[in-house]
């Protein structure tokens, strides 16, 4: 705090602390600082609490907690690998589907569609974001699962069956279905934030490109989209965060089988669903603390994936474009 006060001193023109307090600037600064710090404190407290209440599995299993794929409450063997795998795979499928569709839709709505249609569309898309996840889960059980089981997955197996990820038994419940429902759930975030970012791009940017003889699409793709890149990446982060932590909808369609399968058709498991499933009835300290340990793993997984994504942005932003 002391350092930040000295840093801000030259900015306020050498006035004394009391003067600044009187003028209200310092009060505003202190209040907002307190708010910002409180967020940090909550995060630190969260990690501390998760760390402390997952000490038993750390002592007993050590790092093998992360690499073991046995989850057996009866014999007291707990390993996180199948859950980590499921969380990463389903989120990856979700982004693989949602990013092209979402960014494409955002480009259409921001750049190409008439304003009235664009705002009507946006209203419905934002409505989708407000639907509770248990509703998506129910929809998935009753419509998506039969659809995947009877049409999509047999088709994939027939055409791409030579790949191990598209082979094996088809149940309708599994990684792929969970990924698809996550894609549907994350789309509204990608579309509405990317659209906002694209709308923020100054008109001059488009005009300049058009004046240089670019077509409408060339101006959109080469002048507007790179300018809005940060906002678009931001929307993808938010979508990723939602996909990693989504619980109800995934639980309802992933099949809840703590085994790692190569096939995307096979039932699997993810971190958030197993915590939701087993926490209430978990008896015994080791079992309970292993579930808390999984929560900690999910937290770090989110941090690591976000950090990697941010590095990716830094790398791509340095390389190109006149972005500010």
């Amino acid at each position, binding site marked *: 705090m002391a350092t930040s006060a000295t840093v801000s001193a030259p900015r306020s023109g050498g006035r004394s602390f009391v003067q600044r307090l009187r003028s209200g600037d310092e009060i505003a600064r202190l209040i907002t600082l307190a708010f910002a710090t409180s967020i940090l404190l909550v995060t630190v407290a969260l990690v501390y609490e998760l760390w402390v209440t997952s000490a038993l599995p750390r002592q007993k299993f050590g790092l093998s907690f992360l690499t073991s794929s046995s989850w057996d409450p009866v014999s007291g063997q707990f390993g996180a690998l199948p859950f980590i795998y499921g969380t990463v795979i389903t989120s990856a499928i979700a982004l693989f589907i949602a990013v092209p569709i979402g960014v494409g839709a955002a480009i259409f709505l921001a750049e190409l569609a008439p304003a009235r249609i664009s705002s009507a569309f946006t209203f419905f898309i934002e409505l989708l974001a407000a639907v509770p996840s248990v509703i998506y889960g129910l929809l998935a*059980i009753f419509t998506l699962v039969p659809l995947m089981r009877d049409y999509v997955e047999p088709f994939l197996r027939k055409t791409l069956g030579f790949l191990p990820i598209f082979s094996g038994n088809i149940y309708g419940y599994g990684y792929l279905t969970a990924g698809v429902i996550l894609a549907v759930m994350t789309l509204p975030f990608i579309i509405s934030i990317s659209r906002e970012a694209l709308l923020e791009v100054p008109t001059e940017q488009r005009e300049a490109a058009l004046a240089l003889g670019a077509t409408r699409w060339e101006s959109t793709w080469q002048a507007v989209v790179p300018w809005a890149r940060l906002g678009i990446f931001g929307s993808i982060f938010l979508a990723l965060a939602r996909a990693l932590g989504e619980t109800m909808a995934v639980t309802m369609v992933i099949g809840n089988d703590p085994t790692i399968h190569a096939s995307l058709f096979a039932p699997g498991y993810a971190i958030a669903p197993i915590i939701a499933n087993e926490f209430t009835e978990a008896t015994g300290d080791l079992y309970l603390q292993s579930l808390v340990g999984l929560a900690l793993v999910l937290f770090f997984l989110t941090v690591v994936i976000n950090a990697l994504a941010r590095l990716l942005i830094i790398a791509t932003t340095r390389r190109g474009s006149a972005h500010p």
Partner: protein
Amino acid sequence: MKKSNLWLGVFAALAILLAVAQAKVLINAAGATFPYPIYGKWFEEFTKVDPDAQINYQSIGSGGGIRQFTENTVDFGASDMPMTDEQIGKVKNKPLHFPSVLGGLVPTYNIPGVTQELKFTPAALAGIYLGKIKKWNDPELTNANPGAKLPANEILVVHRSDGSGTTFVWTDYLAKVSPEWKSKVGVNSSVSWPVGLGGKGNEGVSGIVKQTPNSIGYVELIYALQNKMAYGMVRNSSGTYLKADLDSVTQAAAATATTMPADFRVSITNPSGKNAYPISSFTWLLIPSKIDDPAKKKAIVTFLHWMLTDGQKFAGSLGYAPLPKEVVAKEEKQIALIK
């Protein structure tokens, strides 16, 4: 004049509130979700019997009920599984187990072209859940169901994904009828399943079964009755195929009443009676053996007496099997142990 009247009114109101607050005995309880509908009904009806007692029940799951009981944050707990010796060892104020009602589990299935009720032998259920019986036309199934056209399709096994007393009873039954299940998988509210998909809750399991051809799952009898689901018969230890109903579940408890241990921590799956349904279980109230607050003690004791007599009459209409009179008589004696 006006002002003093107002003050008088306020004082009177405060005095009444205070008197009411003092007279009301607030009792907090938490635990199993399976019996929540009847517990909710009981605690509401009980206020008519003892207007001073108010019991607040949170259905957070059996594990949570045991935990809260152990940490002494509730006045009593409730669980679908009896506490283990290890769990009891951690509690200062030892629990008394009071069976409250009974529930049964039924196999439910979806096989295209099969409309009649299937009969399941214990070996068939264990084989299917171990992944050893893979197809519906396995001899273990066709021999028991000579009239049914069982297809050569692969069986899709469905189990509960959430930790649940239901799974505890199901695995307890399978462990009793199959030594292989006992050694390979074991008994718990969550286990490492050899095969199958997991559905969350009764609704999750029945949803998957309804949606997926050639599947089999297990749900609580009360859930199957309320949703008018079809379910199969199970052969009991005396060789009779029984379709679960409230009476055959109560019979399971009656059949074990004479051999039941004094603390009621007993599994009644696979009992010996001729009309006893084999996959049945008690659900228990966990009452501390020593209750310091005399008002709370009086209220809880009154409640237990009421639950064992008048309270049992509510069970049937809500889909729970009532306790047999042999068990009620034994429980009445246990109430005297509350200090």
